[in-house]
């Protein structure tokens, strides 16, 4: 009782402890804690930095980013821009960065499509389809990506015949241990026409769908826009290419021991792309599935009661609501795919990490090399998550 009274008196007194500089004052203590931690971190940083300086001086390794202008003396096999043996480290860094962006960009698009398909398939009323999708997802998710990359790479190099016995699944497409050879657009005036026709098709489709929407509001009838739009945009360019005949396409042909002409998907790129796409698609499938399951069953029933078919209900009612649940975790899957593309170094695809690793091995400037890897991935991550947050805000529920 006595002690209770004592406390009550102390608390009743004016809040004197806010003014005293006592160690018992919470504010003072908070400041001291923070100063202490700040000092500790700074001290650790200084210790590591001074050790690094001493070690670098002892090993006589240069520091700074001056090496970016020096000649690298390596030729990158695969590049989106022109390369040469006299490229500087800066040049090959750009090549590596573009390669990273290429495989991540294509991978994100393909993984999203496949993931949505698999997520819906897992919820299919067809037992066989649902089981197969579940089997796929469970298998792929529980095996390390690197192992899958090794398997794909081995299948695409050791598992395939040489160029002379190349498989030809379709005319003009060759599959051999030198990679996938595809017909490429040749230097021909027809491609200008193709571009014009495609643009025209898109414009006509946009106009038609606006008219279609108006008509639907007025009469309740609508045209099936998806097939019409596809036909309008794709058929005229295809016709143009067919009319131009053989000159439009640069078809790969076997000459001696290898192919000439056409476009090449190297085994490294193909293995990395397959691996990343199939692996990430399994994770996206699970996200899509849980997103669809998060939409209340009443929504499906209401859509059926309105007379919408299963496909239309999915497209107009279920998916737009599911997207709100799906987008945030999918964003982190996109980021994971981009970061995982750094596994390229294990199968020899010249992505940014592989190129930076080469630079580290040649110059010994590990600090700068690792630092540039981190900066590049941080910038990509921030840009991607910025874009996805913007998209998320667009589809987010607008409350009254």
């Amino acid at each position, binding site marked *: 009782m006595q002690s209770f009274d004592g406390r009550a008196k102390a608390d009743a007194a004016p809040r004197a402890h806010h003014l005293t500089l006592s160690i018992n004052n919470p504010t003072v203590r908070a400041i001291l804690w923070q100063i202490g*931690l700040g000092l500790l971190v700074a001290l650790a940083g200084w210790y590591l930095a001074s050790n690094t300086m001493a070690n670098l001086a002892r090993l006589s390794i240069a520091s700074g980013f001056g090496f970016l202008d020096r000649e690298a003396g390596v030729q990158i096999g695969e590049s989106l821009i022109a390369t040469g043996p006299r490229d500087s480290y800066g040049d090959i860094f750009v090549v590596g960065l573009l390669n990273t962006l290429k495989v991540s960009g294509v991978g994100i698009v393909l993984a999203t499509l496949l993931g949505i398909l698999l997520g819906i398939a897992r919820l299919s009323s*067809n037992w066989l389809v649902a089981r197969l999708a579940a089997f796929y997802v469970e298998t792929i998710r529980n095996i390390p990506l690197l192992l899958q990359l090794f398997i794909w790479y081995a299948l695409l190099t050791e598992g395939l015949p040489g160029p002379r016995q190349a498989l030809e699944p379709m005319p003009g497409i060759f599959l051999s241990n030198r990679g996938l050879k595809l017909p490429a657009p040749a230097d021909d005036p027809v491609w200008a026409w193709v571009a014009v026709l495609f643009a025209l098709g898109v414009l006509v489709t946009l106009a038609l769908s606006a008219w279609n929407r108006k008509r639907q509001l007025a009469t309740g009838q609508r045209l099936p826009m998806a097939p019409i739009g596809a036909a309008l945009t794709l058929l005229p360019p295809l016709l143009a290419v067919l009319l131009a005949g053989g000159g439009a396409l640069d078809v790969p042909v076997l000459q001696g021991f290898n192919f000439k002409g056409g476009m090449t998907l190297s085994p490294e790129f193909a293995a990395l792309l397959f691996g990343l796409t199939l692996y990430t698609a399994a994770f996206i499938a699970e996200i899509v599935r849980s997103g669809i399951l998060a939409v209340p069953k009443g929504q499906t029933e209401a859509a059926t009661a309105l007379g919408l078919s299963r496909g239309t209900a999915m497209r107009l009612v279920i998916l737009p609501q599911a997207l709100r649940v799906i987008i945030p975790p999918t964003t982190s899957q996109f980021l994971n795919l981009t970061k995982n593309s750094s596994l390229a170094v294990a199968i020899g695809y010249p992505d940014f*990490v592989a190129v930076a690793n080469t630079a580290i091995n040649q110059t010994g400037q590990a600090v700068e090399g690792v630092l540039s890897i981190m900066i590049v991935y*941080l910038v990509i991550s921030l840009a991607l998550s910025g874009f996805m947050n913007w998209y998320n805000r667009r589809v987010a529920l607008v409350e009254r």
Partner: protein
Amino acid sequence: MTEIVNKAASLPPNRPRLGLWAWARANLFSSWYNGALTLTFAYIAWLVIPGLVKWGFVNASLNGDAAACRAAGGACWSFIAEKWRFILFGTFPDDQQWRPTLAILATIATLVISADRRTWGRPLLFIWGGGLGFAALMMFGGVLEMDFVPTGLWGGLPLTLALSVVGLGASFPLGVLLALGRTSELPVMRGLSVVYIELVRGVPLISILFMASVMLPLFLPQDVPIDKLLRALIGITLFSAAYVAEVVRGGLQAIPRGQVEASKALGLGYWQRQRLIILPQALALVIPPLVNSFIAIFKDTSLVIIIGLLDLLSTAKSALTDPAWRGFYKEAYLFVGVIYFLFCYALSRYSRHLETVLGRGRKR
């Protein structure tokens, strides 16, 4: 009125929907496109499965050398029979391989025992200390007439388990501290934690492993030798701590504010509050996602091949470089793939089971 009642009563009963045929109609051929899908996939299975059976069983060779395998044309299981010791144990001395076997069993037993909820709490510390201590003793040796085996000779499954279990164990306290820092009211703590977490989560694990393997020796004074396994462990710990921190933060944010206020009203200080009130509740909430983090770490340890450690995946890969056994990559990768799968699948089933069991009390 009676007319209608009578008519309804005279309708034949619903035909029971039982039997294989009724099941197939409901689940495989409920509409024309479902029927078409079923037939398409059944056809693909018809094309693929006989080939796989032929490869894996009919034409497979269980013994004999590489030439015999190539002649048979199927899977070469004799390659696995020849190399399984190397793939599982790496370069650990041949006559001592009962030791890594015991270490693996001890680690698995530790994991299985700690999966039982009755052991959660203080006993868990003793179980982990005992189990992992025994595993470490077996691996290192040096006492009880066992030869000392340096970490440079470790490889295969014990290395993978050591990296993932020790990696998770070490990153857990660091992750909890980072999560507390990120939810703290003190700006310096919060700022440092946010910067660390976001920096690490924004970069790939490979770059952290590179940093650990090439920069760590630069960071430390010249006369401090630091072994390769320890470098990889430090890298994996620093990496997964950021992910564990985010998981724990989710749990911290799920605790109602009233709990903090009530514990403040009781006169508890910050650390007492966290230790006695907040963390026990928050950590119980995040055990299923923590198991998922463990799965991710377990798979990610395969990346140490890039800094030259001989884990389960890289032993398989180096077994393939034996000139006498060229080209049997399917068998080798299938073998280690199954091992990875068994661990990860068991863990993911366990995580899902926990979610339902732990969710039972919270769901209404």
